[in-house]
């Protein structure tokens, strides 16, 4: 095979792989269960509870067999603040494939109150609207659970 063809194939492969990596919400190919967890409360116990539920799902089904996404909006967005005391747990769950979505509408409103944009956990992906994200996921077959 000519070198130029090999080179083209390599470039194409690299681009394809980067696109897969670039999509932070890429789904797991073999996941049989899909769950979206909502956190919209200010209660710190709810923060612990939603993380516990995510962890229990991953442990029960196996991280390759379950898709879990935590969507935070309203007062619940505090869970995804970079300073949040649960940062370590979030990092661990993210490593196991759990996704975290932060509502941009809430971010905007909180920015007005704080006078500056809150720093978010690096594992969080900003979505246009938390509740819309939940509806979209439900339409894709996700089960909604609000601990």
């Amino acid at each position, binding site marked *: 095979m000519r070198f130029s063809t090999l080179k083209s194939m390599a470039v194409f492969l690299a681009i394809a792989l980067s696109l897969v990596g670039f999509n932070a919400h890429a789904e797991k190919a073999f996941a049989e269960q899909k769950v979206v967890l909502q956190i919209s409360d200010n209660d710190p116990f709810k923060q612990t509870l939603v993380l516990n539920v995510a962890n229990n799902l991953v442990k029960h089904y196996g991280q390759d067999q379950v898709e879990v996404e935590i969507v935070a909006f309203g007062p619940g967005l505090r869970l995804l*603040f970079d300073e949040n*005391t649960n940062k370590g747990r979030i990092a661990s769950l993210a490593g196991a494939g759990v996704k975290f979505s932060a509502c941009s509408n809430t971010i905007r409103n909180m920015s007005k109150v704080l006078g500056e944009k809150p720093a978010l956990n690096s594992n969080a992906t900003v979505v246009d609207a938390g509740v819309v994200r939940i509806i979209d996921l439900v339409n894709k077959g996700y089960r909604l659970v609000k601990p």
Partner: protein
Amino acid sequence: MKFFKTMTMAAACTAAMGVASTANAANWLMLQGTEPAGAAPRAKVWGFIQPEYQSTGGEDLAAGPWTGEKAIFNQIRPDIDTNKDMNILRARLGVRGTALPLDSNVNYFLLTEMGRNGVTNKDSASVKLTDASITLNHIDGARVRVGKFKYPGAEEGLQAVHVFDYINFTNVTNGLLMERFFKYDGSGTFVQPAAGPDTASDSGQVNAPLSGVGAFRDTGIQIFDTFKKDDWEHSYAIMYGNGNGSNNSDNDDNKDTYVYWSSEKVYGGKGPRREGWKIFAWNQSGKRTITRELGDADASNDIEGEFDRERSGIGTTFRKGKIRASFEYITADGMIFAGSDGGAVPGTLSNLPGPAAGKFTVNGDVGSDGQLKASWNVETEGEADGWYAHFGYQVTPKWELDVRYDVYNRMTDVSAKERKYETTTIGAQYFFNKKTRMILNYEMRDAEAPNLPSDHNANLILDSMDDRLSAQLLVIF
């Protein structure tokens, strides 16, 4: 300076420890001064209630001018008028949190006391404010706490009292750190109260405390923080305060400084019962204003002066699995609380003729010729030290057994005045649940004047000291 040696020793121990490992015991600076970032409520209401029963044999004084009268060390706090008492020792209600949940940089802590203890009984107050503080977390490495709160110091004082494994503090903590505030040193009232200070309280106590006890608190400003490296957690605190205990305002121009360091290897868990091994050192330095009566009843030669008050300590705590242990050594220089005359309850008239004749009048209370009225005393320039060691074992998740040995050496710089207190406490705790428990303690108490003959009045008086039985129920909400 003593505190420099103390801090240097602590730092050297830290350096020798190397990197990561888990720490024992809780980080009280952070637990009491801050809220979990991003996860604290706006206002969390909390509190605890501690009803208790304490009793001694009630043995009376066997020697000295107050022979046959009640021995103060056999009476039950805080009123010290009976040797058996049921009491609501502490009933605290507080609220803590973040003023604005979105901003974790501002925390507050508010706590009130409605129980009957040394904080509330002085004024017969039904409610006292024990803590009111604001913490600003804006500067990395230097959090700022302002208000009234527990100063950084000895473990028994700094830790949250509602997770304390025992009912009563050790003698060294009670004697050197649970500060009482007096106007006079009490030396004049022993000789002849007639011309002495007119400072009797409504209860008839002579040289009665001016306010409630210090309760390990002060009003001031503290800079502190915690640094984590692997499994190690290093904490520091520097505080500048009024030096007037749990009182809201200052009583003189002097201020106290507090310095604290701890290094802890964290094994796991969180909160007050986090597992780990901690070493710590602290120093408290300040001055007190008090009037020395110079041992006579002539008020015209009383001298008001300022006296140094220095306290230092070094210790360690360990908690892992079923094992709990702690040790602390404390030294003191100046303003040593020296109890009461002859071991009697302050305000008690003597039964034997005093060294000076003449009637006396204190707040209209007329005594007979030669009678004395026992008063509280302070040794303004004395020295003291003490230590304690504690071991606890969790037999089952609901049962824990504890044993503690504590030694307190008072007035070590004056041979005739030196007193040594030794107590062995055996205890048991039953946990109904993690927030409700019962504590039982039996204290085997012994005291002596080590440099005086065994038949000296001081030793005969101290031989009257009974053992003490205590039971306490605690619920945290």
